């Protein structure tokens, strides 16, 4: 249904240095040469599109901005065509100091590596249920039938909401993060429907408390010692759902895409499973899915470039992770890379709260796929399609593989 929506068209980019656009089809298809070109030109470029927006492309500039909460606010974390009054706050991702820290500390304990170990068996089971469903066919769209479903079911399991509602969550996220860049009505509808959904679950738990993450948030105390408002609980739930789904879905998809077209890496990973941790980090670096945003609040200088209020910043951790000044052979995927300070989960106080969850899901999804489908390739009869905008990953990923004997 949403595919029929007519987007307000952006003119094609002819001058990336002065007029970049992260929704241009060429960026969506292959952003890496664009970032390399811009990085060689200037560490921070600007466009008049999106009501004015900067793009840092070096690791150093991205790091400076991520660490600078005095000049840059997180109140808007998606670069869009419009900047209406804020709706859909999602603390702590949309919070600045001093509100940020207490809001984040509430969410950290459920996402530690130890907590993720407890969830791991359920994620392994989800992966195998999905593979069972298509393996006999010898081919599949790995995005539609595998990567898409893993994070959404895992987060639903954690929150204590039905895994079968996954398609609903996926639709809202598509509306909020992709279509919403250019269509505010669709954005607002997604936010509203998601809010109504969570109100129902919050009310239900007021009558019948549970031991899931929704109840944990409802029972948490804010810094004033009082329980969180329903609005805060809703906002954090919105964050967990929005941030926890298409991000990791994208990371798993890009990883499978890489392994499908790179037999040497695939065979090595099958032969040497102990390489999985460094491979996961390298795939996160090379194909970082998440680009964040900041809003310039006060004039400052970043890597020698003046930055002025009234503009947004497209905070491209993916571009930072391809900076050859920090990563030797930045454009090569080296699954045994030893030194890898990649910023796929952000830098500074807004480090992704779900990074341990994402790493576990990626690891498990790749391990289970490789165990059962060690030999696979892209289906030449199909076409790989990438998502547009803030989160990058394959949304269509046709694969061919041997049927089990």
């Amino acid at each position, binding site marked *: 249904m949403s595919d029929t929506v007519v987007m307000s068209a952006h003119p094609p980019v002819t001058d990336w240095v002065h007029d970049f656009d992260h929704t241009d089809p060429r960026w969506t298809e292959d952003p890496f040469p664009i970032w390399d070109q811009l990085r060689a030109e200037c560490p921070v470029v600007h466009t008049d599109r999106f009501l004015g927006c900067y793009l840092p492309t070096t690791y150093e500039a991205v790091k400076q901005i991520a660490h600078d909460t005095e000049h840059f606010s997180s109140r808007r974390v998606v670069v869009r065509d419009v900047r209406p009054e804020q709706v859909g706050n999602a603390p702590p991702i949309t919070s600045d100091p001093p509100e940020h820290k207490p809001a984040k500390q509430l969410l950290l304990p459920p996402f*530690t*590596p130890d907590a993720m170990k407890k969830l791991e068996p359920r994620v392994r089971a989800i992966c195998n249920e999905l593979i069972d469903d298509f393996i006999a066919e010898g081919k599949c769209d790995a995005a539609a039938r595998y990567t898409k479903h893993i994070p959404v079911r895992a987060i639903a399991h954690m929150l204590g909401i039905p895994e079968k509602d996954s398609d609903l969550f996926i639709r809202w996220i598509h509306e909020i993060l992709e279509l919403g860049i250019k269509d505010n009505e669709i954005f607002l509808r997604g936010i509203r429907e998601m809010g109504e959904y969570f109100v129902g679950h919050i009310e239900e738990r007021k009558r019948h408390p549970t031991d899931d993450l929704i109840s944990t948030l409802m029972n948490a105390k804010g810094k004033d010692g009082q329980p969180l408002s329903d609005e805060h609980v809703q906002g954090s739930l919105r964050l967990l759902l929005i941030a926890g789904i298409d991000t990791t879905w994208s990371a798993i998809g890009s990883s499978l895409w890489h392994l499908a077209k790179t037999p040497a890496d695939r065979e090595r990973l099958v032969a040497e499973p102990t390489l999985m941790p460094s491979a996961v980090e390298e795939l996160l670096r090379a194909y970082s899915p998440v680009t964040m945003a900041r809003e310039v609040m006060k004039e400052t200088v970043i890597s020698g470039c003046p930055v002025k209020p009234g503009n947004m910043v497209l905070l491209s951790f993916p571009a930072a992770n391809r900076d050859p000044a920090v990563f030797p052979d930045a454009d090569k995927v080296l699954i045994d890379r030893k030194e890898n300070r990649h910023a796929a*989960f952000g*830098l500074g106080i807004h480090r992704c709260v779900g*990074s341990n969850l994402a790493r576990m899901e990626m690891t498990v999804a790749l391990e289970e796929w490789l165990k059962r489908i060690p030999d696979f390739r892209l289906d030449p009869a199909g076409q790989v399609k990438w998502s547009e905008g803030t989160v990058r990953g394959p949304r269509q990923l046709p694969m061919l593989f041997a049927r089990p004997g």
Partner: protein
Amino acid sequence: MAGKLKIHVDQDKCQGHARCKSLAPELFDLDEYGNAHEHGDGTVPAGLEDKAWLAQTNCPEIAIEVTEE
């Protein structure tokens, strides 16, 4: 032969990426928020020096100090 290594996690810099815990579980502990602390007094047992450096060079926040005593 170099002297003993000692590690320290700067609490103002650590953001809980947990890369150190994953690479060198013997040398780091995580608190309830997932932020890292050096295990014990931070002395690196013999044989684990490479892991200490590996953790240091993979910390995205450059929060780990390694010193030779």
